[in-house]
Each structure stands twice: as C-alpha cells, then as structure tokens.
C-alpha cells in the first residue's frame, strides 16, 4: 500500500472519531479529520467526570485531543463541514467547507485578551447555554485547536461612523451593546479603555460621533454622549482595579495637568513608566477644572477620574510654575522624556477703546475665578462678547451668579456661532438674549468702571479663510448698551515662552510645532500636544493628542521607531443598499431625551443641568444602535485592537476545498433529547428542572460556576433524578434504551454526595441498567451512599411552596409519594446528532427508524456504502469504552478497505 498517497476522511471529532483517526494514523495513513464545531472533544469533553472510576473527563480525554493536534499524519479541520461526497472508483471525492474563524490559527496564541474586550455576550454552547461566552471566544480552556474564533453570523448593518469620527476611536457600538443588555460596568470599562475621562466626555464632549451616527440617517442619531454619562453614573470609579504592571524604570515629566497631559500620564503609567505631572494652578484638570462651569461638569466627577490616574502611580505636583524658578530645562534633565501640554490659557484682547476699564474681564479669567470659588457678582446687566462655548458658559454662569440681564453680543448670526447647538438652546432656554450681528467699538466708564458699551451693527460679506462670511461694520449703525460688566470671550492663546530655553521650535501664535504623526518636537525626547499645539480646541482632541504622544513616548523609551498614527477611517454614510435593508428592518423610533433640571430652578444655583438616564430608558435608547442589532459579532473591532499577535482578520472568507479520500469513517456522534415536550416534568417552565448535561456543566470546574453546585445563589440540598427521559418511551419517538443514562445518573448522585454531604437524593428508574465493567458495583455503592432508588417514573413535577413537588408511584411498595426537592435532573436520552440525516443523504447511507446509521451485526461498522464506515453513537447508543472499541473496529475495516484498493 502506498501509504503516502492513501488518505482517509474521518468525520467527527468526538472520542469515536478521535480513536479512529489516531488508530489509522498510527498505521502511517494520512487522515483528514473534519469537525463541525470549533474544537474537537465532542460530548465527552463536556462531561465533568466519567463513570465508573470518576476520573476527570478532561484529564482523560485532553491528552488524546493533543495527540490529534500533534500527529503529523492528521490534518485537523475544525469549524468545517463536509458538503458533498461522490464515489469515484473505490474512493471518494469530498467537498469540504472550511468556515472562516476570522482568526489566523498560525498567529493566535490563545491568550484570551480578545474575549476580554468583546462587548457581545452570547450563550455558551460548551456549557449547553448555562453560561455566557463572547462573540470572539476560545470554546473552552482545553479546546483543540486551542485558538479563538469569531462567531460572526451576519454582516454589520451600519458603517460605525461614530468610531471613525471619535478622535480616540471610542468603541461606541461596543459600549452601547453593553448598556442595551444591562452590563453597565462593562460599558464603563470599555469606554475607559480608550478614554481616561469618561465622566467629562459623557457631559461636555461635542460628540462628533452623534453628528455622523448612521442611525441619524434613518431617524435620529443615538444619544451617544448621554449614554456615556449613564455608564459613568452607574459605575463607582473607586472600585476600578489598578492593573499590576511591570515597572519599566523610565521617568516621564508632563507639564500641564489638563486633559492632554493627564491622558498622556494615564497611558504611560499603564505601560509601567514613572510619570510626574507639573501644574501651575492649585488643582489639576486644566480647563476641565477651571473653565467648564459646575452645572455642566461637577468638580467631584472630574476629581474621581484624576484620583484614579493618581492611583495608577502618576504624581501630580500642583502650584509649580514651570518657567519660573523651576525651568523647563531642569525638568527635562531629570527625566527620560518630556510632554508639554500647557494648553491655551490666555484670553485674547478685544483691541477696543476703554478695554482696561474696571468691570471688563476676559472670559477665561472670569470662569477661572468662579471655578476657584471667588463669588464676585458681575452686576445686574452683563454683556458677554463672543459666540463660542466659552461665551455661552460665561453668560450662563453670570445668570447663575444673579445677574438679572445677560446679553451675548456676537458679530455674526446664529448659523456661524461656534458654540454647540444644544448649549445655545440651553442658553436661550434660560432666558439669555443674543444680540446678533453686533460688535463693541468702545466702552465708556463712569468713575473708572465700565457703564456703557457702544456697538456697531454688522452685515455679512465675503467668506473669510475659515469659510465663514466675514462680518463688515455697517456705517452709522452704532448703538449703546448700558452695562455693569462685560465679559470678553474671543478666543485663547498659548503661553510658551518658557520653552525657549529648551530650543523647542514654535509656530504661529507661539504654538509648539510638532510632527503630527508622533507628537514629537524638534528636540529629542520632548513631545507636545493639545491646545498648546493646535490652539483652543475640544476636550476630546486634547485627550487624543495626549494618548498619541503617550504611544510615541512609549516607543521612544523602548528605543523603537514610532509606529505613527493608529489608523482611523473616515466616517462613512450609509449606502443606498444599506438604507434599503435598514428601512425594512429598523422600526422608526426617535431618540430618548435625557431629562434635565427645570429651568426656573436650575438658574438659581450651579446644580448640574443634565439629570442622566434611568436604566430602562438608557437600555431602550442604546438598543436603537444599529450595529448592535446583528446576531453575533457586531464588528466593532475591539478584538482587532487588543490582539497583540495581530491574529484577527475580519476579511477572512469561507473556503470550499475538494479532496480525494480512499476511505471514510463517519462519527458524527449524538445530541441529547430536548425534554421540553415532556410538559409533565416542567423543563423550561419550572426553575430547578434541568437536564443531565446541564447538571454536568454545573458540576464541572470548567463550567459556569467553576464546579460549585449552586443554583440561584443557593446550594441545593434535595435532588431528584428522573431516568429514561426520552428513552424507552414511544411518546417521544424512542423505544430504544440510551445505554448511558443509568450510569451517568448514578455518577451524578455520587458527585452530589461528594460535594454536598447532607444532600438527599432520589432516583426514579424503570430498570437499572448497569451492565459494563465495574458498573454494577458502582450502582451498589451509590445506593449504599444513600441515594434512594424508586422504581417508577414520576407522573408530574409541579412548583410547591418550598421547592419542586415530584409526584411518583413507587411500583415496589405501591405507594404514592409527593416528594419536595430543590432540583430535578432529567436523565435525557440520546438522539442522532442534528445533521446526521443530511450527511447520510449526501453519502447515501441508510438509517434506522430513529435516524441512527444502519450497520451489519457481524461487521458492526459496515454501512450501506462500501468504503464508508461508522463508529460511536451515530449507529446507536454507546458508552465511552464501547465507542472506543467501535472506533477501533471502524478504523480496522477502513484500513482493510484502503489496503484492498491499493493492491487492486
């Protein structure tokens, strides 16, 4: 026999298939094993223990599984399916579907990091649905191949424009998925993975995500920011773990404790670097602390997040004026890398006559004063000059400080106002007027204090370089507004003179010039980011800049070349085709508004305006997310980002391969009977009624409870096992005996007795069939250990006051019992594995009335097709040793067959 050429196909990777494959391979024949599920091991690997020796099933089987993986003669195709088989000569042409795992088996190291981040929680098949798993998962710890795969069932419906729009690439679909399914803490953790300031961004982010949200093209965009806040509201950051990381022994100094500086410090600390942050003001937070009013961002929230960064080991030194006694050069010399993030703290002057009068203050200084607790009253009549967020903040703050009349003066129209739309709404809502198309031309004082502001009307001319139409004064349109104070909010500038000593190159307006890909300045080891580079921008941009710099600094400290910017796509709108699909699938449902404090009350103090969602509302809103509505993987890319081995590949596709085989052994195995139709036992209806396999997973250390027999948080004490459920039962269509249930029930009873000493155990039976080696003795000792065997199958299981009531007639005593128990375990019988029929049809194999594959009595693996052999449960119920024997027998017949082929 030319052994190199000869190849055998083994269908099914349970103990039967494994035995056959290993035996054939041991004779030097090549074997291709095709298993439909992602791992081999079949049903046996799901078992906790095996009878009658009570060996751990995993310990017994997993070495065999590893043998399959290591055997060079065996080509293992898991997550694959035989689609067609055609006889050709004495052999077979088989078409095999290799399903895509979306994980490169060669690269995956089974570290499990991917699952840790995956926001999609699904039923765990290995635990027969009794526990969760993620959409990207390793089937179980001992799986062979021990590799992850992604359970992807359909293409994602939207383009997840939100993620591309977000400067820190927040996994929006991921956290919305968590929220929609009630996993609020997981949502928080996912947000925090890319953003150290969830509570800030959940409140004051300008939410570029919402602007591009694909749902917005159908009805309204998701309330992404408010949902982020909801996640924050439902998580106590004090309970957030500080991961233990290896210290790298490198020092990094950060100047400026604003969002950019702190985000950078956060990331570097997580990488194991020692970070010191220098801050000029008395408290850290930068603009978040000193510019954003309390009613938008409570200080406590910010403090919580900064405290956590401190817990990561970051040292924040406040009140240090860098450039003063401590120069930038001194700091630079004491560290391995320096990050400059001093922001844009200076207000820009108006350049108008009378600007120095008392009562005229720049907005940043005004807000800083209020935020520091200086309760200066701006007077009754306040004018705020400007149209940005700072102007709006100043106006609303002034209102809260008791100013009767607050007016915003803006030189363009509402269209051009740079402040966020909802901020302007809130402003108007709170009774603050806006004087559009107006600009101050001079201030007049009274005793050195401002009293009047003279303005001029503007009209819009040609667009300027920013694309907005340039306001042009209308001659002769001057008018006067009486004021007690004026707040100017015209923009901010950077303060970078302290960097001159280092030789850092500066650009327009004194901003620091950097390599935009890495955040590096012209001086080695000095990086910069945030407003100090860009001029005033949004919080999330500063955070993104800080994180980018942290990444570059990490590379720099390790002596590696910076990898540059992480890829960020351009937000995509829905295609016509997508819109078509979605219109049929998505029900029109408007956005759920987040409740706010009533206007009358909120303007009297600095209480937070937004109240946050109630859980049910948040979940309902999050469910609107289109991405989360697909089954299985939502394609959020969290695994892709986390996988260090770069093993995740979304672009993989299923593959069809044709192969020629000289012989086939089929071992598709079995399923367990679904007892739902036996309504008298209440499975699926009564809590506490479970199947034998569910009980098996419950007792297994690899199961959902880690092997503790705990149900609904309690240790059950009273157990009732019912045998022959779906066996020897014409009603359920199975007259046959399933052969394994008597023994597995006795085994379960032993396990219960072993773990719960004072447990009471009842076992209902018709005949106790303990026929194998050592089985009868096992049955006897189970009885001796106190399991009470009752001859007779219960008529009914009902819900009692303190448990489940089992009504049974003991046929030996003739008495009717009503037994109250905590758990009823149904010893369900076996059925041919789903898909066996389809497979047999494809291979032209005959089956018996129950669907088991027909065989010959004297040649127990011979099927109706010459060259195809069967082993294990597929041809009828068998326990493990019998399956092993039948696997060997099938292998021997197949060997004989292929040898004959070779010699003929």
């Amino acid at each position, binding site marked *: 026999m030319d052994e190199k050429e000869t190849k055998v196909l083994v269908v099914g990777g349970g*103990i039967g298939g494994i035995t056959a494959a290993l*035996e054939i391979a*041991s*004779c030097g024949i090549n074997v291709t094993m095709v298993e439909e599920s992602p791992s081999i091991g079949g049903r046996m690997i799901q078992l906790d223990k*095996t009878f*009658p*020796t009570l*060996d751990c099933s995993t310990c*017994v089987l997993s070495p065999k599984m590893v043998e399959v993986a*290591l055997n060079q003669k065996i080509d293992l195709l898991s997550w694959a399916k035989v689609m067609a088989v055609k006889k050709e000569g004495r052999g077979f042409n088989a078409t095999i579907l290799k399903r895509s795992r979306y994980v490169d088996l*060669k690269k995956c*190291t089974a*570290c*499990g*990091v991917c699952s840790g981040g995956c926001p999609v929680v699904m039923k765990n098949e290995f635990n027969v649905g009794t526990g969760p798993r993620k959409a990207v998962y390793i089937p179980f710890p001992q799986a062979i191949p021990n590799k992850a795969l992604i359970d992807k069932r359909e293409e994602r419906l939207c383009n997840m424009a939100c993620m591309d729009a977000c400067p820190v690439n927040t996994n929006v679909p991921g956290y919305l998925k968590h929220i929609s399914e009630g996993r609020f803490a997981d949502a928080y953790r996912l947000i925090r993975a890319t953003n150290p300031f969830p509570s800030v961004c959940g409140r004051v982010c300008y939410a570029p995500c919402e602007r591009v949200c694909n749902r917005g093209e159908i009805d309204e965009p998701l309330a992404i920011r408010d949902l982020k806040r909801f996640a924050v509201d439902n998580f106590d950051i004090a309970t957030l773990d500080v991961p*233990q*990381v*290896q210290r790298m022994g490198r020092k990094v100094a950060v100047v400026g404790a604003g969002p950019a500086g702190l985000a950078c410090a956060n990331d570097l600390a997580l990488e194991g670097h020692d970070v010191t942050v220098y801050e000029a003001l008395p408290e850290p937070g930068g603009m978040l602390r000193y510019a954003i009013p309390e009613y938008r961002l409570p200080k406590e929230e910010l403090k919580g997040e900064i405290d956590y960064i401190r817990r990561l080991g970051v040292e924040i030194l406040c009140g240090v004026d860098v450039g003063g006694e401590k120069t930038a050069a001194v700091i630079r010399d004491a560290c391995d890398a320096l990050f400059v993030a001093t922001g844009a703290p200076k207000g820009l002057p108006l350049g108008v006559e009378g600007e120095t009068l008392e009562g005229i203050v720049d907005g940043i200084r005004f807000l800083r004063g209020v935020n520091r607790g200086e309760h200066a009253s701006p007077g009754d009549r306040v004018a705020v000059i400007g149209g940005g967020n700072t102007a709006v903040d100043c106006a609303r703050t002034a209102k809260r400080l008791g100013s009767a009349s607050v007016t915003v003066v803006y030189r363009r129209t509402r269209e051009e106002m740079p402040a966020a739309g909802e901020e302007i709404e809130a402003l108007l809502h709170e009774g603050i007027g806006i004087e559009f198309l107006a600009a101050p031309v001079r201030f007049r004082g009274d005793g050195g204090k401002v009293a009047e502001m003279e303005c001029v009307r503007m009209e819009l001319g040609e667009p300027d370089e920013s694309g907005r139409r340039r306001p042009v004064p209308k001659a002769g349109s001057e008018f006067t507004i009486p004021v007690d104070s004026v707040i100017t909010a015209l923009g901010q500038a950077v303060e970078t003179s302290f960097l001159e000593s280092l030789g850092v190159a500066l650009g327009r307006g004194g901003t620091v010039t950097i390599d935009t890909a890495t955040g590096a300045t012209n001086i080695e080891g000095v990086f910069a980011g945030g407003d100090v580079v860009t001029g005033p921008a949004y919080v999330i941009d500063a955070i993104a800049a800080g994180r980018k710099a942290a990444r570059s600094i990490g590379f720099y400290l390790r002596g590696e070349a910076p990898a540059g910017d992480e890829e960020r796509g351009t937000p995509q709108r829905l295609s016509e085709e997508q819109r078509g699909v979605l219109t049929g699938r998505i029900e029109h449902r408007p956005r759920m508004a987040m409740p706010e404090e009533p206007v009358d009350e909120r303007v009297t103090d600095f209480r937070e305006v937004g109240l946050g969602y109630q859980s049910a509302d948040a979940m309902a809103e999050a469910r609107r997310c289109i991405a989360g509505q697909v089954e299985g993987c939502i394609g959020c890319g969290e695994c892709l980002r986390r996988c*260090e*081995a770069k093993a995740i590949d979304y672009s993989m596709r299923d593959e069809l391969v044709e192969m020629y085989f000289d012989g086939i052994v089929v071992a598709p195995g079995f399923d367990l009977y679904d007892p739902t139709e036996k309504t008298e036992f209440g499975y699926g209806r009564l809590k506490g009624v479970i199947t034998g396999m569910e009980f098996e997973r419950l007792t297994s250390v690899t199961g959902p409870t880690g092997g503790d027999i705990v149900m609904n948080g309690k240790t059950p004490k009273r157990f009732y096992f019912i045998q022959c459920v779906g066996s*020897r039962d014409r009603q359920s269509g199975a*007259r*046959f*005996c399933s*052969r394994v249930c008597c023994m597995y029930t006795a085994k379960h009873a032993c396990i219960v007795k072993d773990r719960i000493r004072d447990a009471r155990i009842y076992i209902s039976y018709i*005949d106790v*069939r*303990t*026929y*194998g*080696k*050592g*089985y*009868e*003795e096992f049955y006897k000792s189970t009885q001796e250990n106190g399991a009470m065997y009752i001859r007779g199958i219960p008529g009914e299981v009902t819900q009692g006051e303190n448990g489940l009531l089992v009504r049974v007639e003991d*046929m*030996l*005593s*003739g008495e009717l019992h009503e037994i109250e128990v905590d758990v009823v375990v149904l010893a369900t019988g076996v059925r041919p594995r789903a898909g066996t029929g389809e497979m047999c049809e494809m291979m032209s194999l005959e089956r018996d009335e129950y669907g*088991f594959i027909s065989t010959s*009595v*004297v*040649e*127990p693996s011979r099927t109706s097709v010459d060259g195809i052999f069967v082993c294990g449960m597929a*041809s009828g*119920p068998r326990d*493990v*040793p*019998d399956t*092993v*024997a*039948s696997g*060997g*027998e099938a*292998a*021997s*017949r197949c*060997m*004989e067959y292929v*040898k004959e082929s070779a010699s003929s």
Partner: protein
Amino acid sequence: MKTGIFICHCGHNIKHTVDVKRLSEFFGKLPNVVVSQDYPFVCSEPGQDLISESIEKYGLDRVIVASCTPSLHGEMFKDVLRKKDLNPFLLRRVSIREHCSWVGDDIEENTEKAKRLILSGLYGVAHQVPLEEKMVEVNKTALVIGGGVSGLSAALFLSKMGMQVYLVEKEPQLGGVVREIRNVWPARTSGAKITGDMEKELRSRQNVEILTSSELTGFEGFFGNYEATLDTPAGERKIVIGGAVAAIGFAPFDPAIKPELQYGKDPRIVTTLDLERAGELALPENPRVAILHCIGSRDEQIGRPYCSRICCINALRVGEAIRERYADSYVESFYMDMRAHPRGAEEFFEDTQEKGVLFTRGNIGEIVPAPTGVLLKGEDTLLGETFEREFDLVVLSIGMSYPVDSQKLATLLKISLDKDRFFLEAHIKLRPFDTAVKGIFIAGSCSGPKDMEESINHGRASALKLYGLLNLGYAFVDPFISFVDPKRCSGCRMCEQACFSKAIKYDEEKKVVHVEEAACQGCGLCNATCPSSAISLRGYYDAILDDEISAFLEAI
C-alpha cells in the same frame, strides 16, 4: 558552548508577574550565553522563527526555552531544533509559568524564582550531549491466543494487513461459545454460520497458522521480539513474534456452585447453554417454562458482583424460541432489572412480551423439584406478593465467569487481573485493549463480559493497535536508557530485582550485569537502586541533577 535563552511572556501569563526584561538582561551577561531574549509568545510561529534564526546566526549548540510546562509544547520545540539540524536533546524547557508566574503574585519573588529555574536549566543543559532515539527491529508477526469471535476477528484483520499470524486455540475447534448458539440475536443466524464463515476465510489465507488443541506454555523476550512456547499436538514449538492479542473469552457460569438452584440434580433444570447444546426437548405440547435471570451475575455472595451483560438477551431468546415452538406454552421470566440495552434490544423485549412471555420482577427463594414439575417459590416485588408456581422446565440464564486460564496466562504474559479475575485493561475508558506490557493486548470477554458485537469490535480494535505498533518493521525507543559501568558493578544484582521490564541481564562469567537496551523503559529504578553508582540513565546523569539542584539553591 553557545547557549541561546528564550524567555516567553506568554501574553500576560508570565509577563505580568515576572520581570522578563530583567531576566533576559541578566542571562545575556552570563558566560556561554550568546543570545538571551524575551518574546511575547515563543510558541507562536514568529517565536519559533526567532529560535531558528538564532541557531543559524549564532551557531547555537544549546537552547533553553523558559515558558510553559514542557509537556505542552515540548515536541514542537524539539522539531524546531531538528529542522535546524540540532540534536533535539540539546533543548531544555524550563517551566516559569506553571512553576512560577501562576503560583505567586509578587513580581520580585517570582522573578527571583524564575531566574533560579532558568539558571538551573542552564547548568543542566551544559551537561547534555546529543542523544539518538534508538531504532529497534520488530517482527511483523502476531500471536492471537483464543479462537472465539474476538480472536478470529483479530487474526483475520492482521492477516489481511499482511502480517504472519499464529492463532492458538485450546479447544479442538474454533468458534468459542458463539459457535454453539443456534440463533444469534440480533443476527438471526446460527453462531456456527458466523464463526464458520470467519474460520473458512482465515483458513484460506497463506499467512495464518491455526494451532488448535494447543496452549501457550512459555513467553519470553521484549516488545517486537517475543518468543512464545506452544504446547501443540505435534509437540512443543517455539515461535518468535512481535506482539500478541489475548482473546481467551470467558467460562460459562457453573450453576452447581449454588446448590439451591438444584442444577444437575434434576434434568428439568438446565442452563441457557445446555439448551443450545440439547437436541429436541422432551416437553409436553403446552409446556410451562420458567426462565431465571442473573444466574451467576449481580451476586456478591458467590464473588460475581458484576452484571454479565448478555443473560437478559439470552433469556429473551429462549422465551421467544419456546413461544414460537410451542403455541400453548406458558413462559415466565423472573428478573431483577431488565437489561435490554444493546441496539434493538428494548424493541426485542417489547416484542417478546407481545409474543406472550410473561415477565415477573421477583426473587426466587426456593426451587423444589417435584414429580409434577419444578416448584418455584418466590416474591413478586412489584405486586408485593409471594407466589408458588410449578414448571416443566426451568432455564437458568447463566452469566460469564472469568476464563479458566486467566491466572496462568496473566503470569506468562506479565499482565494483570482485575478483582473478578478477568484481565485488567490499561485504562477502562480509553485504553480498554492495552495492558501494561508493550505489544500485548486483550480483547473480548476475557477483560469482562461482552456480547458478540462488542467482542468483534474488541478483536479488531486490539489487532489494529498491534498492527500500528509493528507495521513498520521497526520502532523507536526513547534514548533515555540505562547503561552499566562494568568496572564499578559489584554483581550484587539488586538492579535486576528493581527492573520491572526485565532488561537487566547478569553475566555469570564476568559477574557483572548489562542492560538489554531494547527492553529498557528508562524508568531509572536501577540506577537509584545501585549501591555502587555503576548504573547511569542517559540524559539524567547524577552530575546533571547535582548541578541543577546546586544552581537552584545558588550554591554554585
């Protein structure tokens, strides 16, 4: 010496609690270490490439991989060395995951421990020399002991696969007990036909020698080269074989052991097997027949606590046969639990009931032969009533007892028996045909009661195992075998006692021992026993172990 050290992060598994950077830096400075690197996953493809490239670039002659437990990826890393033409026994695996990072949380302590473990490996591997896996020739010849369905199946398969087969049967005829069954269920043919067909096919083959009325009397040698002595009608015969399948079946239970059954005292009380052997029964046309289950099974008092697996089916067969032969018969089967578990048996049970066989769950207390019939007294455990009924024929459905020769054969083959004196398998679940002796397999009912189908499965499956071991004509033996320094050997022969694989041979002339390499299993018992330190185990010299321990204790 050029040693390469590769320290694995195992993702977070090791890195999180062991300072891998510090370790790689530390070892990089040691003499004889030319490369010391840490890497996220040494087991991954790029990780393996890193080793390969380093072997090439630095000309490494020793490799240490500090990562997970050696049993996990040991063979894989050996292959990396093989592919680079480096002897795989120059690889040292150090477990810094199971033995270190998973044990404690303290980075400092873990790093220190990992350092010592690797250091210990470094000292150990320095002693290693290239070892060659030894190839031994094996005979592609098999001995099958027992000519029942198991033995026949085994012999047929081995012969068809091209092996020379000797089939030894104690009885003058082949076929075992199955041959005597007139109507085998569920085949619905005679046993003689089934075994006859097998025998015919076997006899037609050139490479099979069938030795009936023969017995095994001696068995020597080691795997691949056993020498069996046979007592045949033609006199004593010695054959050389690579391995053997023992398939000696069972002994039908002898009911005379239980006098209360009155077996042998009254011709109306017969066993199921007697019935097969008997000619036409001397029964009236409306016979009353009782069938008693579990005779010689599930009976601790007589040392037969086990279920014999076949007797319920036999009882059904008898019941059915009588009902079919005698339309006016009254047939009652007395059972404890109806064990109709094989495929189709439950249906057979139901059909037999429909054919009129009565099934009574009960215990027979007393059997009283009387002139008018045999009186059975007992209790119906379902009705809770006692009964007394008279029968014309009482059939005892007898179980299986251990084969008469089990002890004798076990001693010859050096295999073990279980508590019921059947052969003991290596693992009841996954290695039901293997024994503790390489190349010796067991099949069929000699390892516990089995029905025909299961016995056929066993026969073929065990034969396949043997074929898998012998088919190449050679086998590899681990290089970890013992060798003797004859200058130190005092000839005390203590090692000979310690060796369970009988690999130590004493030279009467030179008064020293030597090791039969092919037989040595490398367990190391001999060198631990030797009072003169004359025996060493390749790959595990005392000096290696001493240095490793010293290095770990930092005593070097």
